[in-house]
């Protein structure tokens, strides 16, 4: 029983670390603000979530103590990180940060132009 629970905890924490690492690589490697934000806001969310879940499982299965604060932390990260990603994207777009040169389509720009003309 202890062995299985140790395996689950170790798996979750390693998975979280892996996702965080991939997010960091993505931030370095991807070409522009927007695609970097994709990597940062998704992969790091799941990374933090699974590390926290592993911590919760550790307390629950090995110490036999349900730590509700860790669960609350999971909920807060889950709710706030997509909003943060959205706000950073929006701020970048309104500052006029250019899209990557291989980007193919920009509906928002055409919509704004149409509005100005009116």
């Amino acid at each position, binding site marked *: 029983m202890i062995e299985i629970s140790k395996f689950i905890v170790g798996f979750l924490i390693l998975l979280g670390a892996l996702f965080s690492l*991939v997010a960091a*690589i993505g931030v370095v490697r991807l070409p522009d603000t927007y695609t970097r*934000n994709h990597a940062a806001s*998704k992969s790091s969310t799941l990374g933090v979530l699974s590390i926290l879940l592993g911590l919760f499982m550790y307390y629950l299965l090995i110490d036999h103590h349900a730590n509700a604060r860790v669960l609350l932390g999971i909920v807060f990260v889950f709710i706030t990180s*997509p909003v943060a990603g959205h706000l950073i*994207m929006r701020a970048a777009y309104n500052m006029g940060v250019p899209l990557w040169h291989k980007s193919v*389509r920009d509906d928002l720009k055409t919509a704004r132009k149409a509005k100005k003309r009116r």
Partner: protein
Amino acid sequence: MAFQILLNFFLAFIWMFLSNDYSTLAFFKGYFFGGLIIFALRRFFAHRFYLLNVIAVIKLFFIFCSELVKANIAVLKVILSPKLTMRPGIFALETELEKDWEITILANLITLTPGTLVLEVSEDNKILYIHAMDIDDVEQARLDIKNSFEKAIKEVSR
């Protein structure tokens, strides 16, 4: 819906008073029987039986989780592929949802789906501008969002 939950709590407390037993178990017993009574009298309420909404919320939560995992696998593939072959872009998506909280939840869901991130919500709350990592499958993404997310959110607010 909130009214029905409140009524169910009220019935549970009445059960506790009737049986003169103030334990958690009595509360849950009363809650169960109160739920049965509300279910039996469901045609007198303006909204449908509230447990259906609760089930819809739970379904939405599971969609959230599964989409988060799928999105991460997709991003992982893009980052770790040897060449950057993606074609990012911004597309517009018209939504039928009206209330503010529904649109917020839809935007959060889209942000957590594979390869899409919400950039802006138009002033009249009708169009979402979405930055996609790979524009080639925009139509597919559109259909997915329409079919699964909007439907699930509508199911909650019905």
